[in-house]
């Protein structure tokens, strides 16, 4: 059973500590929802698990299936079975979706995926996600709408079949119909094999479709409350104020996160006028 175990995780970004001792265990086939106000560490946690180079783990451990995830480069984490559907998928001009996906599938196999097998798999996935038929030949995410980019993340996920997928605000940018399409595709994958999920979303509607068994609330870099789906429903109805009040926590201030304005230098003309 592939289990993700995170213990006492501390993560800094550009010198600022964002995660301050997160513990989380995700067993095979479980669905975990990660909630919390903006800027309190949800995306940071997912990026740190995936291995984004900007996110520095200063303390703690992450293991997956017994392997030390922190010792692996990002590509090895992917091949080990981790997948992150990103909040802002990158546009890669010149690289077609099909070339990219075929290459990504091949690195997981002993021998290259036969062309016919790949085409059939890609066509099925495109159909499942109700994407345009020319997706395979389009450059990766280039010129895609926000919703198309998000659905393309699930196209990749369906083709790569990870053991644990992390969905970072996948539902933002998706209309109601697209949300159902994406949720159906994810739920179908879960029926096929014991896919584990960590889902970040602000919306109860998405959680209703994905049905998480565990909900964690991250405030100021710590998981402060845990529960089942009822917790997500209560947050949807009442917000986070009751958590701040009942658990004596405060969200990381947005203002605190913003960097102080940086001077780009003085205007030489103004300096001259001032006789400097």
């Amino acid at each position, binding site marked *: 059973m592939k289990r993700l175990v995170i213990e006492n995780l501390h993560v800094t970004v550009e010198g600022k500590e964002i995660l301050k001792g997160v513990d989380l265990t995700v067993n095979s086939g479980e669905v975990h929802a990660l909630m919390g106000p903006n800027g309190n560490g949800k995306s940071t946690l997912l990026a740190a698990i995936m*291995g984004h180079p900007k996110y520095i783990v200063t303390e703690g451990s992450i293991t997956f299936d017994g392997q030390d995830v922190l010792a692996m480069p990002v*590509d090895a984490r*992917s091949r080990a079975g981790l*997948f992150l559907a990103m909040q802002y998928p*990158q546009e890669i001009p010149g*690289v077609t979706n099909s070339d*990219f996906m075929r290459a990504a599938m091949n*690195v997981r196999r002993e021998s290259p995926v036969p062309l016919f097998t790949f085409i059939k798999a890609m066509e099925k996935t495109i159909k499942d996600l109700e994407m345009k038929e020319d997706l395979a030949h389009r450059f990766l995410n280039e010129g895609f709408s926000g919703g198309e980019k998000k659905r393309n993340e699930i196209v990749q996920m369906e083709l790569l079949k990870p053991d644990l997928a992390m969905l970072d605000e996948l539902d933002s940018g998706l209309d109601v119909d697209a949300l159902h399409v994406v949720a159906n595709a994810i739920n179908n994958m879960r029926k096929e094999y014991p896919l584990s999920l960590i889902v970040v979303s602000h919306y109860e509607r998405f959680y209703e479709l994905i049905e998480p068994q565990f909900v964690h609330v991250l405030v100021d870099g710590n998981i402060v409350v845990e529960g089942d789906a009822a917790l997500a429903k209560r947050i949807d109805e009442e917000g986070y104020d009751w958590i701040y009040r009942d658990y004596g926590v405060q969200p990381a201030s947005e203002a605190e996160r913003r960097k102080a304005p940086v001077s780009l230098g003085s205007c030489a003309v103004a300096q001259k006028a001032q006789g400097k």
Partner: protein
Amino acid sequence: MKEIRVNQNIRLESGFQEYLIESDRKLDLSITCDTNCQALFRIRGAKSLRIRGYAADGCEATLLFWNECNAPLECDESYEVGEDAHLIAAYGECGGAAVDRSIYFALRRPNAHGEILSATLASSNINYRMNMVNFAPHTLGEMRNFAVVMKQGRLMIDAIGSIVNGAKQSKNHQTSRALSFEDGQHSTILPELLIDENDVEASHAMSIGRVDDEQLYYLMSRGLTLPQVTALISSGYLMPVADVIEKEEVRSVLREELERKLSAL
């Protein structure tokens, strides 16, 4: 495949033809295109190449020079494009050895259309000097250069678009892009426009830069190693040069050759 080992005057036939240039001497080639034709020139060796090309009135011609040399290559090329003719000179520079290439295009008669397209994998000194000159009215000149500059690679592209006085309603456009993945490379692109006529269109665009770290992270987060990502992005950048040849089987051979080179990076 026809072999070229000595100086030759070549008159291209209609359709597709393939030549192999292999010599240890200086070669002088004259290429005449007076019909709709496409030619692939595989360059395996030459001390230096001097090419004079002519596209006759009304013809559509494509010349693809595929550099496979292991030794440095020096080329001096000059092309004349006739009335209503369209001549493409394309370059696949993926041999790994140094290249010094000078290309001159004269759009001599009305409605002449000249194109230079280069795809370069630079891992040594690559020098291009290009000059696309609109001499006649209603002519169109285009230069498109794409380069991936590897560690120790030095790329220099000096691309000049000129529209002479009297070449009314002519167009001259150029784009040059150089991409790198790591430090230790050097790229210089000098886009120039020399315009001596009103009522014309001219433009230049150029970019030199490293692949964005976020893009690398995104691609690697799907399991590809850095060399695999480098090969994938380079392939997307350079591969379109093969598309100037209409014959699909030739295109796929060229693509496979390029992929092999890139996967060996």
